[in-house]
C-alpha cells in the first residue's frame, strides 16, 4: 500500500483530519459509497476509499449455458447501457462462430448504439450530473459563486438563449428547471430512436449474434432521421451551455482544475464497426479495430502508446487486491495462446475462474467484491490503472490523437476532433471542435460528454446515409446464419457509454465454459490492487481541493461528488469494494435539499 502511505504523508502537517462518508451516492446507477478523510484547515481531501455493495455472479451462472444466450443475459448486467453489453457480446460471439454481420445489420447496430450514447449521456449529464451545478445546489454550497453567476453574461447566449450563467444554472434545477425537463424529453426521443433499431431499451430484443432482426424498411430509417433532426438544436445548445458553465467555473473558482484530477491514463476500446472492413477474425483485429469510427487506444501522459486491439487484449490483467475471491492461479487455464500464438497470461479474462468467497468486512484482509483490472505495459513493466474519463473523454482523446477517423461529419486532426452538424430548426450548420485539454479532471470529463453527444449525432447521420443507400439498392439482409462450434474462443471490444467494455468467451462442447465481461466501472472504480495502486476514483478524489464554502458541520462534499460523478459511475457493472480503516465514521446530517419535491 505504498501509494496510500505517500498520499497520507502528503496530507499536510498540522491539519486535523475529519472522516466523512457518503453511502450510498445518489444520481448514479448502482451502489457506491465514498469514505474520505478531509483536512479542513488545508481544504483538501487527504484520503479516499470507495465501496460498493452488490455481487450477482454473472461469470459464475453463465457457465454451461448456450453461448447464443450470452447477449441476452449480459445485457442484464446494466440497466442504463445493457445494449452495449449485447453488442459487445455479439462481437465476441461473431469471432467465436467465424461470422460477420451483414453490412446493413452492422449499420443498424451502429445507429442503435449512437442513439444509446445520445440518450445516456443526455440523461446522465443533464438530469444527474448537472444537479451538482444547478442553482438550488450552488446556493447551498457556494453562495458567492452564485452571486457572481447572476452578474456574468453567458458568452454563448445567442445559441442557447439564457442571458446569465445563473439563468442557465436555474434551468438545471431538478424537476422544475427548463433544461432538466427538456433533457428528460430528449432522453425519450433518443430512446425511441434506439428502439427503432434495437427493439427495446435497455435490454434489446432484435440484436443477435450474426446481425439483427430489425426490419430494414425505409420507414424505420425515416422515423429515426426525423427524430434526430428534431433534437439537433438541443444538442448544439447543450455544447454551448456546457462550455459556458464550465469555463465560468474555472474563472469563478481558480484552481478548480485540480478537482478530480489525475494523471492522464486513459483507455478506449473503440466503437462503431466499419462493415466494409470488419471480419471479426482475431488475426485481423488490428486492422478492423483501427477502422472503427471511434478509435481504440491507450494514452499515457499525453502519449498514444497503442491503437492495436491485439496489444490491448493481451495486456489486460485482472488483479486481486483485497477482494472476496479465491485466487485462480492454480486453476487450469482455458487459453494459453491466442490464435496468433502469443502467450495469454493466467490473469487474463480468458483464463479467469471466479471463485466467490463471501466474508465479513475485514479491513486488514478482505473487504471488497471487485477485482482490479489493470493494463500491463510491457515497455515499463507497470500495471496501469487506466480510467475511461467517463467514456466520452477517453473516446475523444484517443480519437483526436490517433488521427484515423475521417468522415464528412466527424474528423480527427491529430490534436482535436471536429464535429459538424447540419442546419436545424433554430440554428445554422455548426462545427464544434473538441481540443485536448491540459488536464484529466472532473470538469473536462463532464464537458466532453456534451461533445460526444454531438459526435454520436453526427455519426448517426453518416450511418443513416450508408444504411438508406443499401435499402434503396434493394439490400434487405440483416442477419447471417451460423452454427455454434464445439470449441472456440472469442473476444469483443466496444465502448459502453461510460467507457471500455470487453467480453471474453470460451466455448467447450458447444457450451459456455468461461465468460468474462469487463465493463468500465471495474476499471474506474477498482480498489487498491495487489501492488497497492489505488483505483481511479480513489486516486482522483485524493488531493482534491475543497472549494465548498460550508465548514465541517454543514458540509455537503459537493466537490468530491463532482469528482466522482464525472466518471459516470455505473456500479452494477460488478464493482464491489470497500476500503477503509474500520474507524468510527463521523456522521454528517446535511439539510434536506430538495426534500419538498423529493
Amino acid at each position, binding site marked *: 500500500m505504498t501509494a496510500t502511505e505517500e498520499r497520507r504523508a502528503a496530507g499536510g502537517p498540522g491539519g486535523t483530519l475529519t472522516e466523512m462518508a457518503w453511502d450510498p451516492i445518489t444520481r448514479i446507477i448502482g451502489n457506491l459509497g465514498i469514505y474520505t478523510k478531509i483536512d479542513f484547515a488545508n481544504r483538501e481531501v487527504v484520503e479516499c476509499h470507495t465501496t460498493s455493495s452488490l455481487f450477482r455472479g454473472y461469470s459464475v451462472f453463465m457457465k454451461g449455458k448456450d453461448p447464443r*444466450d450470452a447477449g441476452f443475459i449480459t445485457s442484464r448486467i446494466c440497466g442504463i447501457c445493457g445494449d452495449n453489453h449485447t453488442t459487445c457480446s455479439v462481437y465476441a460471439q461473431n469471432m467465436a462462430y467465424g461470422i460477420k454481420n451483414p453490412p446493413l445489420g452492422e449499420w443498424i447496430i451502429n445507429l442503435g448504439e449512437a442513439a444509446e450514447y445520445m440518450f445516456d449521456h443526455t440523461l446522465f449529464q443533464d438530469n444527474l450530473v448537472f444537479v451538482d451545478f444547478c442553482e438550488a445546489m450552488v446556493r447551498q454550497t457556494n453562495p458567492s459563486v452564485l452571486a457572481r453567476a447572476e452578474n456574468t453574461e453567458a458568452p454563448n447566449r445567442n445559441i442557447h438563449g439564457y442571458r446569465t450563467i445563473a439563468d442557465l444554472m436555474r434551468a438545471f434545477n*431538478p424537476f422544475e428547471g427548463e433544461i432538466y425537463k427538456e433533457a428528460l424529453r430528449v432522453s425519450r426521443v433518443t430512446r425511441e430512436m434506439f428502439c427503432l433499431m434495437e427493439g427495446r431499451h435497455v*435490454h434489446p430484443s432484435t440484436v443477435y449474434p450474426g446481425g439483427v432482426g430489425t426490419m430494414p424498411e425505409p420507414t424505420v430509417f425515416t422515423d429515426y432521421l426525423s427524430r434526430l433532426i428534431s433534437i439537433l438544436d438541443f444538442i448544439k445548445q447543450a455544447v454551448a451551455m456546457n462550455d459556458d458553465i464550465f469555463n465560468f467555473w474555472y474563472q469563478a473558482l481558480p484552481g478548480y482544475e485540480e478537482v478530480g484530477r489525475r494523471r492522464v491514463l486513459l483507455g478506449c476500446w473503440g466503437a462503431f464497426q466499419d462493415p466494409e472492413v470488419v471480419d471479426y477474425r482475431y488475426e485481423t483485429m488490428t486492422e478492423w479495430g483501427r477502422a472503427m469510427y471511434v478509435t481504440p487506444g491507450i494514452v499515457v501522459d499525453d502519449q498514444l502508446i497503442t491503437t492495436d486491439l491485439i496489444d490491448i487484449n493481451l495486456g489486460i490483467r485482472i488483479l486481486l487486491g483485497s477482494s472476496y475471491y479465491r485466487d485462480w492461479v492454480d486453476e487450469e487455464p482455458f487459453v494459453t495462446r491466442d490464435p496468433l500464438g502469443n502467450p495469454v497470461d493466467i490473469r487474463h479474462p480468458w483464463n479467469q475462474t471466479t471463485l466467490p468467497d463471501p466474508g465479513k468486512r475485514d479491513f486488514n484482509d478482505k473487504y471488497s467484491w471487485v477485482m482490479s483490472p489493470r493494463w500491463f505495459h510491457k515497455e515499463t513493466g507497470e500495471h496501469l490503472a487506466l480510467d475511461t474519463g467517463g467514456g466520452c473523454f477517453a473516446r475523444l482523446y484517443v480519437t483526436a490523437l490517433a488521427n484515423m477517423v475521417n468522415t464528412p461529419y466527424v474528423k480527427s486532426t491529430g490534436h482535436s476532433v471536429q464535429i459538424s452538424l447540419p442546419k436545424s430548426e433554430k440554428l445554422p450548420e455548426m462545427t464544434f471542435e473538441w481540443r485536448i485539454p491540459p488536464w484529466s479532471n472532473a470538469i473536462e470529463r463532464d464537458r466532453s460528454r456534451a461533445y460526444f453527444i454531438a459526435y454520436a449525432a453526427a455519426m448517426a447521420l453518416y450511418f443513416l446515409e450508408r444504411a438508406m443507400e443499401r435499402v434503396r439498392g434493394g439490400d434487405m439482409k440483416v442477419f447471417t446464419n451460423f452454427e455454434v462450434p464445439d470449441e472456440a474462443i472469442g473476444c469483443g471490444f466496444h465502448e459502453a457509454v461510460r467507457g471500455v467494455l470487453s467480453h471474453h468467451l470460451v466455448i467447450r462442447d458447444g457450451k459456455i465454459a468461461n465468460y468474462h465481461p469487463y465493463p468500465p466501472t471495474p476499471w474506474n472504480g477498482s480498489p487498491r490492487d495487489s501492488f497497492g495502486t489505488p483505483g481511479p476514483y480513489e486516486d482522483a478524489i485524493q488531493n482534491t481541493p475543497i472549494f465548498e464554502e460550508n465548514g465541517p458541520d454543514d458540509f455537503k462534499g459537493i466537490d468530491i461528488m463532482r469528482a466522482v460523478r464525472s466518471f459516470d459511475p455505473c456500479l452494477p457493472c460488478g464493482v464491489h469494494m470497500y476500503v477503509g480503516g474500520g474507524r468510527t465514521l463521523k456522521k454528517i446530517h446535511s439539510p434536506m435539499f430538495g426534500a419538498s419535491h*423529493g
Partner: protein
Amino acid sequence: MRRGTGNTDTRSSAETSRTTGFDEITILWISEGMSCDGDSVAMTASDRPSIEDIVLGLVPGLPKVNLYNKVLSPTVGGEEFLAPYRMAARGEMAEPFILVIEGSIPNEKINGDGYWSSFGNDEITGEPLTLNWWIDHLAPKAWAVMAVGTCATYGGIHAMAGNPTGCMGLADYLGWDFRSWGGLPIINVPGCPIQPENFMETLTWVLYHAAGSAPPPPLDSMLRPQWLFGKTVHEGCDRGSYFEQGDFAQDYNSPKCQVKIGCWGPVVNCNVPKRGWMGGIGGCPNVGGICIGCTMPGFPDKFMPFMDAPPGSSLSSMLIKPYGVFIRRMRGFTNVTTNKEPKWHHNRPILTSGYDPRWRPGVTPAQVR
C-alpha cells in the same frame, strides 16, 4: 387523512374501510436488490404519464407525491438521502408510504458473515445494512408494496440456475399471502426491464387508490395487473397472421412469425407487441425480436436456450389450422409451467441452484468449495 404509523391494528380490508383517501404519500424506492437499476431507468422513459407529471402534481386527483429514488434524488447521497428511509424504518414517517423494491432478494442465510447486497450502514456498528434488513423493517409499515421488474417479482436473471446468491422474488421472500398495512397484496409489475408505461400506469392506479377514488388494481394469481398481463404476446402480435397461415420465419431476416426461431410469444403473458416498447415504438416479435419470456415467473431458465424453437411449437405450428381449440389447450399447459418459478427460488438456509464455479464440460461436477 389517515396516517401510516405501522400499527398493524389499523390494518383493514381496502374495500371496506377506506372512504377517504390520503392527501400526501411518499414513495420509498429501493433498487439495491440484485438488479441493474434498469427499472428505475425504464421508468424515466414513460411519458404516459411521466414521472415528472406525478412529482409535479399534474395528474388531477392524485395525492401529493414525495418520490425518493436513488437515481433521481437531488441530494448528493449518504445520510441526507437515507433520512426518509431511516425515518420510515423507525415508524416515524408522518404520511403513508409505498415501498417499491427493484431487484431480486438475495438469500443472506447462506453466506456466513458475508452479505450480497447492502443499502447504507448500521448507524451504530457501521456494518452494512442488507436489503433484507430494510425489507424486514419497511414492508410491515408500508401502506402498499410494489415489486418492479422481473427480478423483484419472480427472481429473474440473477436467480438463474447455478447462481451463487440464492436470490428470489419479493413474494418468495415476504410470502405470497403478504398483505401491506393498506390491506394490499404485493403489486407485481414484471418485465426485464418493465415496459415503462405499464409501470407508470400501475403506479398511477395505486395512487388513485391512495387518494380514495379507485379500488385497488385488479391482480391475477401471480399478483400482476390483469389488464396488462391477461393476454399473451402472440394474441397481441401483428405477425400472428403468418402463424395462422402456417408461414414461419426460418431466420431473423424474415418479417414472418418467429415461433420456429425461438419466440415464446404464444405462452407468455405480456402486452408489449400491442403497446410497443415506449410511445408505441419498438417491442419484441412485432419488430423482429424473439420473445424470451422476460415477464414470466419461469424466466429465464424455462426459456433457454432462447434462440431455439420452444418445445411444442413444431406440433402447434403444424396443426395450426384444423386444431385451434386443441392448440389453445396445449398452450395452456406450457403457460402454466412458465408461470411457475423454478424450485430453487426460496429463503431456506441452503443454496440449491446447482452453483458450481469450477464447472467445465464433461467433468463431474466439482464439489462446491
